[in-house]
């Protein structure tokens, strides 16, 4: 199958008073139709920046993104997005929140059909009984279920998920991973998900893209995950390759992700946090060094 999403030399630069801050540089990635790809890396490495450029909410400095043969310009409902926080409008019920998108995308369908679509997806994510509640009456996990239902209900070309389960407790997280993967399998959507949870990535993804640390983050390594589908959590955990892959990923995150940092980091003043490989303090210090050079 041909490439469905093509990210070509994607670059993001924020101009700062101390010169340009290059967050992402020449990021290349190709995703096939129906593939589930996870983007993994330390927090702040730029993986969310890449995703937000695909959503169109963040402007692209250089390079381009092509989805289904068309270059992406700006945001649009052809990409279903699940944000880290559910981003529901609090004055609307769960149902109305989903309907807001459905009305927008299926404006040619009649009211009853649109209602059916919203109700269908809300039921599938397990909210059949509480779809007419306001977000404030729902638990964090239930709110994120609404977020997932909203993204799928748009019948988007692809799904973009930005650490969708990052704010949930581990039990709820596993439940929602199950909800997500079942919906994904049913609708055969192409998905790109940002996460920093190694186990989550291994359970969901066909491929895991490891990003190097910023600044100038890029693809460090791509890992194929061959666990048979449909996946069962127990089977995945018991698979002979599971721990090998997991070790490999963790080793990457622990050591190789930093390989791009220039040697000057040793010369950093002692006051800067030493084990903060990607924090803003580090980046700042780096900028200072680069500007003095």
């Amino acid at each position, binding site marked *: 199958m041909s490439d469905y999403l093509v990210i070509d030399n994607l670059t993001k630069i924020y101009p700062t008073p101390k010169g340009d801050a290059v967050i992402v540089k020449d990021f290349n990635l190709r995703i096939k139709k129906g593939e589930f790809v996870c983007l993994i890396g330390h927090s702040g490495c730029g993986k969310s920046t890449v995703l937000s450029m695909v*959503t*169109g*909410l963040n402007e692209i400095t250089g390079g381009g993104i092509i989805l289904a043969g068309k270059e992406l310009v*700006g*945001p*649009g*409902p052809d*990409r279903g*997005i699940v*944000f880290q*926080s559910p*981003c529901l*409008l609090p*004055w609307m019920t769960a149902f109305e929140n989903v309907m*807001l*998108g459905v009305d*927008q*995308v299926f404006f040619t369908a009649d009211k009853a059909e649109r209602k059916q679509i919203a109700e269908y997806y809300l039921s599938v994510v397990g909210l059949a009984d509480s779809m007419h509640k306001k977000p404030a009456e729902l638990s964090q996990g239930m709110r994120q279920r609404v977020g997932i239902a909203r993204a799928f209900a*748009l019948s988007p070309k692809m799904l973009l998920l930005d650490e969708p389960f990052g704010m949930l407790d581990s039990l709820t997280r596993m439940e929602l991973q199950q909800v997500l993967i079942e919906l994904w399998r049913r609708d055969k959507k192409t998905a790109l998900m940002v996460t920093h949870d190694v186990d989550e990535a291994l359970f969901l993804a066909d491929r895991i893209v490891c990003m190097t640390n910023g600044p100038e983050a890029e693809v460090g390594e791509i890992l194929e995950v061959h666990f048979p589908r449909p996946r069962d959590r127990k089977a995945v955990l018991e698979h002979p390759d599971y721990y090998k892959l997991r070790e490999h990923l963790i080793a990457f995150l622990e050591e190789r992700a930093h390989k791009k940092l220039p040697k000057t980091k040793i010369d950093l003043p002692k006051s800067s946090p030493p084990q903060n490989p990607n924090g803003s303090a580090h980046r700042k210090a780096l900028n200072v060094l680069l500007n003095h050079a």
Partner: protein
Amino acid sequence: MKSFKLDWLVLPLIGAGIVLLLWQISSATWAKELPSPLKTWETSKPYIVEPFAKRGEMDQGILRFTWYSLILVAKGYALALLIGTPLGFFLGLSKTFTKIFDPIIQVLRPVSPLAWLPLGLVLFMGAGKNASELGALFTIAICAMWPTVLNTAVGVRAIPQDYLNVAKVLKLSRTKTLFKVLIPAALPYMFTGFRLSLGIAWLVIVAAEMLTGRPGVGGFLWQEYNSLIYEHIILCIITIGVVGFVLDRLMSLAESKFKTA
């Protein structure tokens, strides 16, 4: 202090009692022209027990006067909201718009109603006998709209990026974004502005009526001052205070309804 049964009633009564006592002492000692509480009650009685009586243009029951004032306030207040809310939205949405108009707003905002009224009268001089009403409406609207303008602007600026992203991702039209996202999100702030604006509109009415001599609580107050019936000044002051209090309470109720939504 420990709370006891009926303290909600007894304690405010003690406060009112202290003020009454000070009033009584003042009228008996250093302010001889000030009518005593009892005298005030006796002279005001016909206006209170027959609140809707109409004995002449400037001799009517106190609630009838209040009603006239409320109608004028309602008109001016509606005008203030009609102009103030969109203005607040533009200020909240556009940085350029803010840069253009914020300084002039900050300059006009502290101007007293007493200063605006003559200008209002001049503006509508051509309107003949309606001039005083239009001038009063202009004054109420221009004085009362600022809290609505500023609070709406703050409310619009405080809308979380998350909500705006939802609108962007779904490609909602401008109208849909306005009615489905911006207005509901800014509504709690807007209501705070509406409540403060109503308070100011009620403050302005007295000044407007005094200067134009229109029938109403303020007009009555000024006329009775000129007629040396000082008891009625006090009657008017109490009426204005009570009505203002009730209006504020009603707005608070409406506000809290929208805040939970």
